[in-house]
């Protein structure tokens, strides 16, 4: 078992002929991901890293079953590419691209929710079903099979933490990057629900950040979970982010600070690490 993706997930790479697309196709293939095709308008019929290139996702799906797509498409064109994937019937869409306009992100997620597509990202490192399937850009060597579920807002910080987990003998079931933008497809709760149900996942690591109220919402669900949760919240010493006028204050009502998040998580029964490298130790305690 694994959540969202598994060893049978057939993946298409949108934008496979670009530099990033090529590089990460090679990396994903090396990890064992089943990449059944790539797309690049007007380049149908070519091959990249031995993978057939199609003109678009529709053309790929005429030839082969496709379960998931990953976008290596520049921000101005990402919405169009995402719409193509969603309307073509892709069920898991991983959007690595950063700096997508937030209105485009809302449009993508609105359409995806109507068509039943799960969106990982935008601005995510992707999702890894350890040892089975990697869709996205994290370095291969740190993601090894095990029993820890990881869900994170940020990218490299997660590699750091996953690297520490692996070094300490904690492999992972699935590692999910929600994405660093304000509007992303999955929430902590969406993923925690799946980990709670996944028989292979024994404990969950949550990597959060200051700002927003995603961690506070997650706390409400963590309270009801049977599995132990260890969290790290980045930004204790970070400068305050920009505030969205009074409207931001009215929405947040005091949530979003480092302290508010740590308090909420602690009250919900999660262990909260002060620094990233403390996570494995707290996990060990929780699992005793």
């Amino acid at each position, binding site marked *: 078992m694994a959540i969202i993706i598994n060893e049978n997930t057939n993946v298409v790479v949108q934008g496979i002929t670009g530099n*990033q697309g090529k590089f990460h196709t090679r990396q994903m293939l090396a990890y064992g991901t089943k990449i059944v095709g790539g797309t690049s308008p007007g380049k149908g019929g070519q091959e990249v890293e031995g993978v057939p290139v199609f003109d678009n996702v529709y053309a790929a799906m005429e030839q082969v079953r496709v379960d998931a797509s990953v976008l290596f498409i520049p921000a101005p064109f990402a919405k169009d590419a995402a719409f193509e994937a969603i309307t073509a019937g892709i069920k898991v869409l991983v959007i690595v691209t950063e700096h997508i306009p*937030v209105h485009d992100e809302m449009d993508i997620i609105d359409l995806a929710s109507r068509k039943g597509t799960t969106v990982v990202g935008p601005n995510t490192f992707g999702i890894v079903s350890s040892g089975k399937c990697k869709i996205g850009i994290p370095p291969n060597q740190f993601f090894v099979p095990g029993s820890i579920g990881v869900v994170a807002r940020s*990218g490299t910080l997660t*590699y*750091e933490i996953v690297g520490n987990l692996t070094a300490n003998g904690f492999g992972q079931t699935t590692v999910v990057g929600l994405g660093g933008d304000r509007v992303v497809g999955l929430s902590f709760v969406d993923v925690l629900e799946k980990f709670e149900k996944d028989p292979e996942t024994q404990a969950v690591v949550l990597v959060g950040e200051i700002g927003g109220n995603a961690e506070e919402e997650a706390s409400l669900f963590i309270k009801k979970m049977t599995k132990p949760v260890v969290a790290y919240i*980045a930004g204790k*010493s970070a400068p305050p982010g920009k505030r969205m006028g009074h409207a931001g204050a009215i929405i947040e009502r005091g949530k979003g600070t480092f302290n508010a998040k740590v308090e909420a998580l602690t009250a919900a029964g999660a262990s909260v690490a002060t620094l990233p490298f403390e996570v494995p130790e707290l996990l060990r305690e929780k699992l005793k």
Partner: protein
Amino acid sequence: MKLFEYMGKEIFASYGINVPRGKMVETPEDASTVAKEINGTVVVKSQILAGKRGKGGGIKFADTPEEAARVAGEILSMTVQGHKVEKVLVEEKIKIDQELYLAITIDGAAKKPVIIASSQGGMDIEEVDDEFIAKQHVDVSVGVYPYLGREICRRIGLTGPVSKEFNRLLGLLYKIFREKDAELVEINPLVISGDTLIAADSKMTIDDDALFRQKGMPYVEDRTSIEKKAHDLGLAFVELGGNIAVMANGAGMSMGSLDTLVHYGGKPANFLDAGGGTGIEGTTKAIELLLETNPKVIFINIFGGITRCDDVANALVTVKKNKEIPVPVVIRLVGTNEEEGVKIIQENGMEAYKVMQEAAAKAVEIANAG
């Protein structure tokens, strides 16, 4: 990108939202001219990218053109909420029957725009009880129709001709919000003046990531010169005033780096998220930027994903070749193409750490020793 009040009002007016008659000026003389045209009591408002200007003395009334020139002169020499005033908006004073609040922003949790309205607008809106505030999410694929405006009016108790006008204005404000790629459009107060509604203030934030398609949108600089330089390079940079220059890739990693440095007793000079896949050239410029903060040590913390360790290593070598780096560099390098990167670093006579906390501790040691 935040817009000045007068810019937001120009956009409002171009969409058909009522704003007070007035004009932005940069000198007392021009303030006097505008006051003459308005021919009545005017309000002179400092144009800065911050709120609570009234409490800071940045908003003043004037009954004559001479007085308008005088108070404009005063305000133009002020620093309000930490912002030096360079422009003022001179406007007619409007009759205020009631102050409403109306904003549209993005609710990240709901993944949708949210309309926020209150019958109790004005300076203390943040303190207003939730029961007097109507929040209404909008489906982007549906948009704002009159029924939604009527529902909001019902919830904030707005009736009669003003409610019809409110509804019209709400539709226009949503149009602005979408067409201008706004993260926030806010009118506080939205003034009921007889049967009309007047936007007595404007607050707008435009999505930086959408500026490429916002042709004709004025560019507003709200960064220090070094932050601006960073922004032009596509880097997220904030000055923090300490003595350890920090570069990491990813916002979370950058924050985690600061947290760790502070934990060991260090003082970060900056926040610099070099982002993903910046490449050699971008990374080179990022390192050059760090040197401008005159740090005692440079701490580079890379966990490569889309960023490749060899690119970072090559960038560092490039900078070293072009000019002497006057302070020690502590570099931590793991992830994509780690082996190649570490090799390059070592070949150039430096050391590459594998463990973040060891590198952080070393950087703090150097900074605090010097």
